[in-house]
């Protein structure tokens, strides 16, 4: 990074050595530099491929900063790694591989447990320091929330993970995207991957958020507008004072669902809140680079939203882009409410739900699943009025599960909260494709934690404004 800054300084002094310069980049004059205005995504990709700038559509090789895998895709990735680099091969950099079992954890399923054993064995053989084992003090839960909690997310980096919601980490001003086992096996052995530079779409949120809206409403509105293929092969950058007013967890919710519009990555330039969060979590205090899109950067499309005029949103079955406003479908009868996952299982989500549920009783089965063990611990200590959030949920009649992905993706039939029948559920999760939470004929409505909590109290889809006045 320091070399890069020196290089920049040299560039602006217009005195680059003609040949054999730092990083082996071609010499460039200051006016050329100004012309090549780049988006944040382009800047990060360029720097990781040793280029001064990149163009959308260009195929490049990049150096990867962090590779993450979990119990569902880890065993396959390890298989690809062994098959191609040899049984005795070592990962490219022990410090850059993070393994977080989170999907099928609290189940009696033998195969699921076997898969965690595969991870354990690999971690032991390789001596990997960043492993969060099931049944140990270190166990975390959902990988996308565990990554920032444990200091593995930093602005300006490239994070790849064998999970499509790896895009969540774009909230930290980095390039983060999901990859398959073969790609991950390749990265594990080489630290490199090829990427096609995506064009960037920009979403600008103006105005102050009303108290009945959450980031979930914003992103469901965006996906409803552009469709679940509206950002295919493209970067989604979120910008505007409405975004920077959000806390880090809410920004993660925005980026988390970029994939539901087909986006390659979601990204928010880092500000002081990001820097403070990252510094408070990274025990190794690795240096990082804070950047943002240049003033003249080219965006493939720009959509501007005034958040003051938005209303609470749901995605109706069976697609995240099947948008409706809560006031349009209020009164729809429900069988279950679910609050959890990497999208809706963070402290901000539970604070919002608790505000609505405090002192009241749910009318339908309500499942609460903290994303991580840290969130679970905080539920026991953080108070709203005289009660902890955990007490508020239990007193309301909700059931609380253990930190993991749980029923967000269905999973084995004994999974906590899984929809084992063709019932109708309102959920803070991110996907409602047929069968996603279990039964093929079950219907899932996606909504914000405020809307889900309000609906749990009535057993009908309910506008949170009814309980917030």
């Amino acid at each position: 990074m320091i070399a890069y800054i020196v290089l920049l300084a040299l560039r602006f002094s217009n005195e680059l050595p003609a040949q054999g310069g730092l990083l082996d980049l071609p010499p460039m004059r200051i006016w050329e530099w100004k012309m090549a205005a780049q988006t944040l995504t382009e800047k990060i990709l360029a720097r990781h491929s040793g280029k001064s700038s990149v163009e959308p559509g260009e195929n490049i090789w990049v150096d990867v900063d962090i590779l993450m895998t979990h119990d569902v895709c880890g065993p396959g990735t390890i298989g690809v790694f062994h098959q191609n680099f040899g049984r005795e091969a070592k990962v490219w950099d022990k410090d850059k591989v993070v393994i977080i079992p989170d999907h099928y954890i609290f189940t009696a399923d033998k195969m699921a447990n076997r898969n965690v054993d595969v991870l354990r064995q690999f971690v032991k053989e390789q001596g990997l320091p960043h492993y969060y084992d099931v049944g140990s003090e270190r166990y975390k839960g959902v990988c996308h929330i565990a990554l920032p909690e444990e200091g593995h997310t930093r602005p300006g980096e490239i994070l790849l993970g064998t999970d499509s919601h790896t895009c969540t980490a774009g909230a930290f001003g980095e390039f983060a995207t999901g990859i398959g086992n073969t790609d991950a096996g390749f990265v594990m052995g080489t630290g490199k991957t090829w990427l096609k530079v995506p064009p960037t779409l920009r979403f600008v949120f103006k105005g102050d958020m009303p108290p009945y809206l959450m980031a979930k409403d914003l992103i469901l509105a965006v996906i409803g507008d552009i469709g679940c293929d509206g950002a295919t092969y493209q970067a989604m950058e979120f910008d505007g004072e409405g975004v920077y007013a959000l806390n880090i967890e809410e920004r993660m919710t925005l980026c988390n669902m970029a994939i539901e519009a087909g986006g390659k990555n979601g990204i928010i330039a880092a500000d002081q809140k990001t820097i403070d969060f990252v510094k408070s979590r990274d025990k190794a205090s690795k240096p990082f680079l804070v950047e943002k899109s240049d003033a003249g950067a080219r965006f493939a499309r720009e959509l501007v939203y005034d958040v003051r005029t938005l209303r609470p949103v749901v995605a109706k079955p069976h697609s995240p882009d099947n948008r409706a406003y809560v006031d349009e479908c209020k009164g729809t009868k429900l069988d279950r409410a679910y609050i959890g996952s990497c999208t809706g299982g963070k402290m901000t989500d539970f604070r919002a739900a608790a505000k609505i549920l405090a002192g009241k009783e749910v009318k339908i089965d309500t499942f609460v699943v903290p994303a991580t063990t840290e969130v679970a611990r905080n539920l026991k200590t953080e108070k709203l009025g005289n009660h902890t959030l955990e007490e508020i949920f239990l007193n309301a009649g909700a059931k609380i599960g253990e930190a993991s992905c749980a029923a967000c993706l269905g999973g084995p039939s004994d999974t906590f909260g899984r929809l084992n029948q063709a019932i109708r559920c309102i959920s803070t999760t991110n996907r409602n494709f047929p069968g996603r939470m279990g039964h093929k004929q079950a219907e899932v409505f996606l909504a914000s934690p405020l809307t889900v909590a309000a609906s749990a109290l009535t057993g009908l889809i309910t506008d949170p404004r009814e309980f917030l006045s």
Partner: protein
Amino acid sequence: MKLENIIQGKAYVLGDNIDTDQIIPAEFLTLNPAIAEEYRQFGRHALAGVPPAQGGLPKGHVLFHKNETDLVSDYQIIVGGRNFGCGSSREHAPIALDAAGIKAVVAEFYARIFYRNAVNGGYIVPAETAERLCEKVCTGDELRINLEACIMENLTTGEKYSLRPLGEVVPILEAGGVFPYARSKGMLPS
């Protein structure tokens, strides 16, 4: 799989937004594709998440496997609509189709990660068409794809459709995946 210029087989037709939960439901992700026998088992569960009415268009309610326990399907080519393979990054999705004997998918376009996984592992050929073939081809039609000529012929009806060139992924598919490709280019030791 090595890339063959001619791919011929029976069509199984699906609609838009066939997501990875439909292609391989999460409950089967406990199988480890790195183990050969478990890889084969994915074939049996391929498309298990497609709601019956949407399986085998235009009629629907057409089973993808003749018998529930069959590992391999009677169909070799899937015809889909828009955004095929959206949703999760699970490579189990193209693996399940490969294990079920699918050689190619023909769709209007793909979700990014599915496309990449299909190519990287060399599992299936993800062909694209400008036409909305999921409303023209019927499940059971005999199709013949000529990749070089970028043409798909419906041998049952005699119709011909053009395919988009596979373009930059051809060398990877020809090599049989990203690892053999990288080795052939000297990027990895062979």
